[in-house]
């Protein structure tokens, strides 16, 4: 790596993420958008494992990790510490985790953080399963995805439940800002991070990040896959302010979900089954209607 890379980025190369890891790409965008006056509390997960193996770290800003479910609470402590030191006005605090650490095991801590009104941006990197432990279903796993704990079989088409609506759950706390983004649109992530950090109070940003290993996609196609999720209506990009939906990224001519599903091994079993395929299309259609994406 050239010197410039290390000077320009706050999350740098040398980590051990898989080739094409969507989460790793998104982290770099988020860190750079936040800038160097930022402290990060990280939950356990892929990101923590591949970025900070002692004695190395990929983070060029103050970073702290302790457990799987508590980064929102650790970040709350960091914020209070800085408040006591009267340094809280100049420093951004980000709490970040995967979808399991956010919506499942970490839900209580994040709800507490939002309810207490801490000035923290919580970023969820949503790769839609427990990837660190080997592709087990999370509450954020989409309908009919094949995971190691929702395997397909004679009696199963994979995960039977829709995604947990974390962006709405956070918005329901009537926080100033709750939004989704996609790694396919780095400029949009940057804009949303900067917007969030300009607002005092608790903020939530959930970024869709394909996982080539877990989704069984080609490592060079991460951005393409992420783009298709948005274009089909399966991953709506939305912004809530104080509990109200204020903005969505329009998709004027939505693509059929088949285009998104067929490039991923985790959905391959659906392609032969018109009925199942129709059910996934229904999820996208419902999203388009519910959020007014067209």
């Amino acid at each position, binding site marked *: 790596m050239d010197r410039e890379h290390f000077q320009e980025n706050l999350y740098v190369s040398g980590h051990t993420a898989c080739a094409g890891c969507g989460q790793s790409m998104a982290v770099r965008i988020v860190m750079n958008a936040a800038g160097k*006056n930022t402290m990060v509390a990280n939950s356990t997960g892929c990101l923590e*494992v591949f970025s900070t193996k002692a004695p190395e770290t990929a983070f060029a800003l103050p970073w702290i990790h302790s*457990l799987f479910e*508590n980064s929102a609470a650790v970040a709350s402590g960091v914020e209070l*510490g800085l408040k*006591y030191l009267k340094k809280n006005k100049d420093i951004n605090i980000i709490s970040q985790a995967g979808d399991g650490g956010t919506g499942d095991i970490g839900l209580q801590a994040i*709800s507490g953080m939002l309810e207490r009104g801490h000035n923290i941006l919580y970023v969820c990197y949503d790769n839609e399963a427990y990837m660190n432990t080997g592709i087990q279903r999370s509450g954020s796993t989409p309908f009919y995805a094949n995971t190691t704990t929702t395997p397909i079989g004679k009696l199963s088409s994979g995960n039977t439940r829709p995604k947990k609506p974390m962006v709405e759950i956070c918005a329901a706390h009537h926080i100033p800002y709750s939004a989704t983004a996609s790694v396919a649109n780095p400029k949009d992530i940057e804009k949303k991070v900067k917007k969030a950090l300009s607002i005092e109070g608790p903020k939530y940003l959930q970024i869709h990040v394909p996982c080539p290993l877990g989704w069984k996609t080609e490592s060079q196609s991460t951005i393409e896959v992420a783009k298709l999720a948005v274009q089909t209506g399966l991953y709506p990009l939305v912004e809530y302010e104080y509990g109200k939906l204020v903005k969505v990224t329009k998709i004027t001519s939505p693509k059929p979900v088949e285009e998104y599903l067929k490039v991923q091994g985790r959905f391959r079993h659906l392609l032969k089954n018109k009925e199942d395929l129709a059910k996934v299309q229904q999820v996208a259609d419902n999203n388009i209607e519910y959020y007014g994406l067209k």
Partner: protein
Amino acid sequence: MKKFLEGSWALAEAAKLCRPGVVAAYPITPQTHIVEHLAQFVANGSLSAESVNVESEHSAASVVLGSQAAGVRSFTCTSSQGLLLMAEVVFCIAGMRLPVMMVCANRAISAPINIWNDQQDSISLRDSGWIQLYAENNQEAVDLIIAGHKIGENSKIMLPIMVCVDGFILTHGMETVDMPDQELVDKFLPAYNPPYKLDVDNPMSFGLLGDPTVYIETRYAIQKTMDQVLDEVVKVGKEYSSLTKRDSVRLVEEYRIDDAEIVLVAMGSVCGSIKDVIDMQRETGKKVGLLKVVTYRPFPKEAIKKALNKAKYIGVVDKDISLGSDGALYSEVKAILSSDKKVSGFVAGLGGRDIKVSSINTIIDLTEKEVNSCKFIDLKQELLWDEFKV
């Protein structure tokens, strides 16, 4: 100044005197009054700390982990199930070498749910890397909180401190406590100035993945530091004593032990009752003494060995039990003594069952007979299955 205080008030006052910057706790009986008093201090403006009402003990511990890492002295307190819910964070706080202060208002563990005192909660976390200090009374608890900060925050130590205080018996008991004044505490305890912290001008990563090439050394480092803590307790104890004329801060206390043939070993408030029984038995000519363990982690092996050197019969009283084995203190004391020592172990007072004068008399009698393993005291025969009746 001497004041007649509820234990929880004295403990909250002691915490306040140490000027914590962040206080995070979740209410649980019998710790509740401590949290309430601290909240009131903040509300009155007499404590300038960030006080936060978290949604669980897990988050209380996580908050103080974060704030201490940010370079701010942090305080939490809990009991029983709360401590168990904190457990994984408790281990992290020690592993990350953050000298958080915690008061554990000792209470039994479910099931059956029981809000009364024993020491199973803190004993269950004895292996977590925290310094554990057990108070006999509220005066000691106050002193251990103040001195505990100084021990744990030493830049060579950097380990968290748990001051263990028997729930209800101490937390809700009214006692005369000589509260040190703020000036004395400020002189004794310097502002928290850690060798490392989260800092945008000097970014560091905390809580890295330690694979097999580095992990065991992190544990060895804590183990070696624990050895240094033994010396530090003595050193800080002397300094504290020179300011307050009290020797609460120590490894062990020896009570009428010099010529004692029978020596009981115990921790916490039961030591007060044991001392009274010893005085009574001494009047009848029985040579009984007490070794009170104040510093339980690190375990002061040499001090205990030395103190028990002359004792003919030793009886260890546990308010805890490692089910399927013995009381924790008993097995540890026995392990460091030579095999010819006559050591008996007693489990008493679990779930708040009173340890009465008669209970202690029984323990002394049985110690002399050498029961030699874990003997439960004051069991109600009518509550036992037939095959378990004794």
